[in-house]
């Protein structure tokens, strides 16, 4: 099984994601350059965190025009697995592979901290190693993670059980207080209707080694690996 981590200009979690896939999970992993046109036979694309193009216009807005994103679009349409983490999630929204948009965090500040996440849907390629209601502790680090979608879209999202991860308390309550950035429905992770494209604001690659204080992020990668094998 083969993973590809996309590098956009301004990506900065590309090496972290690569390190975890390659050195922690011992998977074959490639870097994919945004200007290329070829996904090189990978089974799962990861769009990593960072500030593609500085996020100067809107987070993820310019990266979506990269040549490689055309390939990613087709790959996703064929059912290939796509994981967008943080800025990668923002790119997926701008690409239209996921519904909705990101607004600035409700306190208008960048937020870097551990948060608790409740698994709302454990039947996805990205969460199948978890239980519904299970709580994970994984860090976030973003400025624009306040998820928004118009009411009709929210209806759809809920109807299709697309909410995968929600900001919660340590015991799994999705309270207002636990909703650090102000997202609708405490959304931290969202999947597309077909169930093969996941965007999540928290960084599982920052919580995959004991030395970093949490290994809860492993669940995401393990789920993908077991799904693919």
């Amino acid at each position: 099984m083969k993973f590809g981590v996309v590098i956009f200009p301004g990506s900065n979690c590309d090496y972290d994601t690569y390190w975890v896939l390659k050195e922690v999970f011992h998977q074959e992993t490639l870097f994919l350059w945004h200007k290329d046109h070829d996904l090189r036979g990978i089974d799962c694309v990861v769009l990593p965190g960072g500030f593609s193009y500085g996020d100067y216009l809107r987070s993820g807005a310019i990266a979506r025009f990269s040549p490689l994103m055309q390939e990613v679009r087709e790959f996703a349409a064929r059912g290939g697995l796509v994981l967008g983490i943080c800025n990668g999630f923002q790119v997926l929204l701008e690409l239209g592979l996921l519904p909705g948009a990101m607004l600035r965090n409700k306190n208008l500040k960048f937020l870097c901290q551990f948060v608790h996440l409740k698994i709302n849907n454990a039947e996805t390629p990205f969460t199948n190693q978890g239980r519904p209601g299970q709580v994970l502790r994984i860090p976030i680090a973003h400025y624009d993670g306040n998820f928004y979608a118009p009411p009709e879209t929210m209806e759809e999202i809920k109807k299709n059980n697309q909410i995968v991860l929600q900001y919660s308390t340590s015991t799994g309550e999705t309270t207002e207080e636990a909703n650090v950035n102000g997202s609708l429905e405490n959304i931290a992770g969202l999947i597309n209707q077909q169930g093969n494209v996941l965007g999540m604001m928290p960084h599982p690659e920052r919580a995959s080694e004991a030395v970093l204080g949490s290994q809860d992020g492993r669940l995401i990668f393990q789920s993908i690996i077991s799904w693919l094998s």
Partner: protein
Amino acid sequence: MKIRVLVSFKESVLDPQGQTVKNALHSLGYDFVKDVRQGKVFELEIDDLPREQLEVKIPEIADKVLANPIIEKFEWEILE
């Protein structure tokens, strides 16, 4: 020629930045300000184009690049 494109949140979308500016103004005693909405402005210096072409091209780049139609709306004008 010069084009100005204004991008702002749709009415239905909450604008926390605008709210914060409003609060800041109130705390300084500028109570005559009732509401604030914050948006972006782009000033484009472009090759001279006939009006009909502008009518196509400018909305195109506004829609595709400058604004995110899910949350934002835009308007544009010719400056000079």
